[in-house]
């Protein structure tokens, strides 16, 4: 769900958001495209974006629509724990929608426990405090941070995101968590030459096979 002012994103997602908006993308268009997705797709589906477009669409209406389509969760980086609990938790729960919350290397243990208690689905573990697509290398990852969280025995599975761009970073992330989230590398993989389905298949293959 593109937004005009993606403050948590680096240049890649900024640029793709701009292109998507120019092409007329909106939440209405997205819901239209997803109307029958559950006839062919059974894996969990999570929508990612910023709060303001959802806010304008109407948070309650948005959650109902997600429920109707069969969307499982949202990642809205500017909807943090405190504001979510105060205003929207009930609406999300009524619509079986999980709001995925983030943790970073700076997040305190007490707050991680709080986030774990409120979360359903999974926790989005940010590999290092940065905007997306910052291009940090696998050796920059804080193994001690990953291990610290691993030993907390959280009830939710964790997925590691930010800086996952190839097989090496992906494999490393999977050592410490249930999986990884790939954004910038994915959107920059689309090429003019390949059909989108082929381009995605190629990308996934590269991600899974060591170079």
């Amino acid at each position: 769900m593109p937004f005009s002012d993606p403050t948590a994103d680096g240049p890649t997602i900024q640029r793709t958001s701009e292109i998507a908006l120019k092409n007329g993308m909106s939440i209405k268009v997205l819901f239209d495209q997803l109307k029958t997705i559950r006839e062919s797709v059974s894996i969990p589906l999570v929508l990612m974006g910023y709060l303001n477009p959802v806010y304008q669409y109407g948070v309650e209406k948005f959650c109902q629509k997600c429920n109707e389509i069969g969307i499982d969760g949202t990642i809205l980086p500017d909807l943090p724990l405190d504001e979510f609990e105060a205003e929207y938790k009930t609406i999300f729960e009524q619509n079986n929608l999980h709001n995925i919350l983030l943790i970073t290397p700076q997040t305190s243990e007490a707050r991680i426990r709080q986030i774990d208690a409120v979360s359903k689905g999974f926790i989005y573990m940010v590999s290092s405090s940065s905007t997306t697509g910052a291009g940090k290398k696998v050796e920059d990852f804080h193994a001690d941070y990953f291990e610290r969280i691993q030993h907390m025995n959280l009830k939710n599975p964790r997925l590691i995101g930010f800086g996952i761009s190839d097989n090496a970073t992906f494999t490393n992330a999977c050592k410490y968590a249930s999986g990884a989230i790939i954004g910038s590398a994915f959107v920059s993989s689309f090429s003019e030459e390949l059909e989108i389905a082929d381009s995605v298949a190629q990308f996934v293959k590269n991600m899974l096979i060591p170079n």
Partner: protein
Amino acid sequence: MKYQVNEKGYYGEFGGAWIPEMMFTNVDELKRRYLEIIESDSFRKEFDQLLKDYVGRPSPLYYASRLSEHYGSKIYLKREDLNHTGSHKLNNTIGQILLAQQLGKTRIIAETGAGQHGVATATVCALKGIKCIVYMGALDVSRQAPNVKKMKMLGAEVIPVHSGNKTLKDATNEAMRDWINNPEDTHYIIGSVVGPHPYPDMVARFQSVISAEMKKQLLEQTGSEFPTRILACVGGGSNAAGAFYHYLDDEQVELIGVEAAGKGIATDETAATLAVGSPGVLHSSRTMLMQNNDGQITEPYSISAGLDYPGIGPLHAHLFKTGRAKFLAATDEEVLKAVLLLTQKEGIIPALESAHALAALDKIKMNPDDVNVINLSGSGNKDMETYLNYFGY
């Protein structure tokens, strides 16, 4: 204290801290510590001393007799343009640099529109010997060239921002991204009463020296602390917040904020957020925003780079919603007329931003005995190129 922020960071329905988790530790530390720090005796002592000896406060409250005669009502100018660096912005950056030092931060970032906040930030960083990075929209870099050079001379690094409309909103996005990428050693000096709680309250407190002085000066000069009305321009709204602050609960004082209408509020080239906007979440605050039906932020326009912002501080959104303050809008053309009028009636060349407040004098009904205070937030030095081009001198 009806119009003060509550413990959760809200002014009525507006405000809060809608921050990505990557900013949480920094914002939470500020939230927990800002009041204790800025209310401590040692902080107050150094802050007041610097305001006096370095900024040059108190700024005069000047009775503008020829302008008063022109309008047939008493007009006073609060001369923030006479502060060191030429605007009210230094009040806030002095406060925040002292706070940053208390927090042990060694790197300062800031966003700037007209460059006044950038210069004020670079100035306090030079004063304290702290590294300074200023984000500025590429369009503003070109239309406010003298301020860019000043910042560089002061030792700051100025990073032009090429995303979006290349103005203040985009510079703010980029400063936030910098803070996310530098979560430990950096303090972000936001220049206005915008952003996540506690910034709107913290910046308003630092700027509140304007209305604190105004009360004393009015009492001395008119026999009453209370003017009939106070007028101030509003982009994010920091000078207005400072000028209104100690009068918020004195409902007999009329408060008027003046937004930038740009080419007119009926056109799509405007920056008058309250006139054309609706509630939403931008830059970590729920406030009034200029946006389309899909919740995408629309590009503002104003001749004045300092007011070229599609949001407004949550305090002002609340004052608007409750009717405590009235908000008007002045077009580029009305503003330029007001610039020339003040220049030739009083020998004071105002900043484009401040001239919005002056232009509103043509839009309100004033009685001969009314006491009108205009917060003259900045000097026109930085706008000379615009003035020379427009007026053809």
